[in-house]
């Protein structure tokens, strides 16, 4: 029996964003269809997977996580190199020490750390502030200045602090992460506000504020799906690629933190699956960069993505 393959006729596509400079520069976005539906449209760029680096040695990490970075946990530059060795497409530097309760490091100190990490690796760099709006507004412009010309991705800019961060990104030639609290209208509104400051739309990546598996992942899942269909239907202010900050969400869950138990099985396997399942499901909703913490998660997610990049046979 003849079966006609059902294809949607989308009128538009996701924006393509270029990150980094030089040989290891990457492109994300540019799709003309839903994730991995090769029979329907183009998926010109492979979704990227990033590993995380912190500016201070982590506390309360399980052994099987910290042992993957043994010897480099006190040195962000060496840590970043290790991430590249593991095959990360991007390195994500968390400036946790700038947090008022965790050292309150100055913008200048933060910029120094960021410069050292940027000098150590040639993969594109993502730099994330501590999440306190006012502090990030002071730190990220300084970082933007120190990394000028490297085309990094800086964030997170929120509705309350985007002005100084976006100004820094424009001056330093960087892209910005526009972060919204699980609300597609606020996401769109922030994109409008940022582009009104004359940052080009292809210099914006959206962070919808994901929850981990079991902790509200379905909200992010549906918002990302709506962002993608919005982009494909021609909404220019929802067409930016999506970054998934998986590591921070997955590793704070009870399921990742609880040691081996008869009820929940082996912690190592469970925690890894928690991170990988969170990342993969949101990539299938329409995410473009998955930021994970464990190098094994990186390997597994990349392996899955490369399988999904194989076209369907029809």
């Amino acid at each position, binding site marked *: *029996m*003849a*079966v006609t*393959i*059902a294809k949607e006729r989308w009128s538009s596509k996701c924006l393509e964003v270029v990150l980094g400079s030089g040989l290891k520069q990457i492109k994300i976005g540019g799709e003309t269809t*839903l994730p*991995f*539906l*090769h*029979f329907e449209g183009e998926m010109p760029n492979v979704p990227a997977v990033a590993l995380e680096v912190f500016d201070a040695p982590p506390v309360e990490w399980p052994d099987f996580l910290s042992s993957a970075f043994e010897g480099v946990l006190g040195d962000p530059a060496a840590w970043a190199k290790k991430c590249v060795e593991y095959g990360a497409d991007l390195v994500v530097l968390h400036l946790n020490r700038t947090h008022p*309760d965790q050292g309150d490091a100055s913008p200048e100190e933060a910029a120094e750390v960021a410069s050292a990490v940027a000098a150590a690796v040639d993969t594109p760099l993502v730099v994330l502030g501590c999440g306190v709006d006012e502090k990030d507004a002071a730190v990220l412009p300084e970082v933007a200045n120190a990394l000028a010309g490297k085309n990094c991705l800086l964030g997170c800019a929120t509705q309350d602090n985007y002005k100084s961060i976006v100004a820094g990104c424009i001056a330093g030639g960087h892209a910005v992460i526009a972060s919204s*609290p699980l609300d597609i209208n606020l996401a769109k509104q922030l994109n409008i506000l940022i582009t009104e400051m004359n940052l080009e739309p292809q210099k914006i990546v959206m962070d919808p504020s994901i*929850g981990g*598996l*079991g*902790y*509200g*992942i*379905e909200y992010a*899942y*549906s918002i990302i*799906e*709506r962002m993608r*269909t919005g982009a494909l239907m021609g909404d220019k202010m929802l067409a930016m690629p999506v970054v998934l900050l998986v590591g921070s969400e997955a590793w*704070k*869950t*009870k*399921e990742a*933190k609880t040691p081996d138990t*008869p*009820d*929940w*099985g*082996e*912690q190592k*396997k*469970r925690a*890894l*699956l*928690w991170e*990988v*399942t969170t990342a*993969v*499901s949101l990539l*299938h*909703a329409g995410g473009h960069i998955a930021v994970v913490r464990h190098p094994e998660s990186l390997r*597994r997610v990349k*392996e*899955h993505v490369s*399988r*999904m*990049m*194989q*076209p*369907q*046979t*029809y």
Partner: protein
Amino acid sequence: MALTGLEIYKLLPKTNCKECGQPTCLAFAMQLAAGKASLEKCPYVSEEAKEALGAASAPPIALVKVGAGERVFTAGNETVLFRHDKRFEHPTGIAVTLADDLPPEEIAGRVEEINALCFDRVGQLHCVDLVAVKNVSGDPAVFAGVAKAVSGKTNLALILMSEDPGAMEAAIKETAAFKPLIYAATAENYEKMAALAKEHDTALAVKGENLATLADLVSKITAVGVKQLVLDTGAREVNQVLGDQTQLRRQALKRFRPFGYPSITFAAEQDPVARVIEAGVHIAKYAGIVVLDTADRAEILPLLTLRLNIYTDPQKPIAVEPKVYEIGAVNENSPLYVTTNFSLSYFCVAGDIEASRVPGYVLTVDTDGTSVFTAWAAGKFTPEKIAAALSESGAGDKVAHRKVIIPGGVAVLSGKLQELSGWEVLVGPRESAGIPAFLKQFWN
């Protein structure tokens, strides 16, 4: 295609008799179009209209049941491609395989392991749904014997997996009362498999080599009157499964009848991480049943959790009962936190209280299951409501102190709440993750 309210109205008696419970025929037509009423409510509808409406109102994906008694597994009746368009109706069934060549002494253990794949989440049990008995031995008598043994040891629904009609006949004779799913009818065996499904009134899985051969086979099988079907497109590579599942769902919604049944997929990878990833993709992307060869609790927990999340009704926030919850070994000096009765809010706060290692009470205020910010913006999380909850919940009998911790995001409520309730109001962290740090600083 579904009919509009006006198209349906034209087929109704237009007498506005109200016997259907609606004020007018037009209102009833609108309810029918929205899928909120059924045609049987109208006592005067003509046979002609019944036929026209019946065909149009049949669900695009048939409802299929596997099993009998207390644990019947149901799939189908799906109406959307994206959960945000309405909701996904029936959570993907998770089936765990059991090979019939296991040494006989290990079979009972494997069944028990599968039976025990249940997890408690916020007071609700989430379990796997089916046991897939697989005819690896190739011996009909062994297959029948194992199927019978398994059926006696589990309440889960059964899938009998064999493409040999002889083996299937032997096994179904032993287990017909449990209404197992016959897997599978293929181009070679479909006449015999369809006859078995018909004779024993069980659901039948149809396995094609691709979409076209599947459609072909389904038409042949429905022609002989077997209508409880489950579809296998034959794809085993995850990229092809995604494509095929998307096609099945899209075409079913476009009323291509051969694809109007729930599907079955296989997470065929032997590597544990890869198979969980694959099963996860199948769950998110429309599979009616996913079969995998593991009873490892660390592998099943993430899949059951993903299923719970994806199949949550997006139009209905999940609420917990508004009351005082005890986290850990509380006493009269334990801190008292207040949040909304949105399950996720409660869950986050409870989790972070546990992480702080200081037992505490959580008072959830009834905000119709909305989150702190949403409830505050909608006037459902007000000083008046919190004060009322404090006095009505009996929180004051549980603690000797009169201090209450509110979410940092609604710090603005603190003055009025203090005034209304007489409790000292402490402004907690904006996010519950800050609870351990907050306690160190502000509680003692």
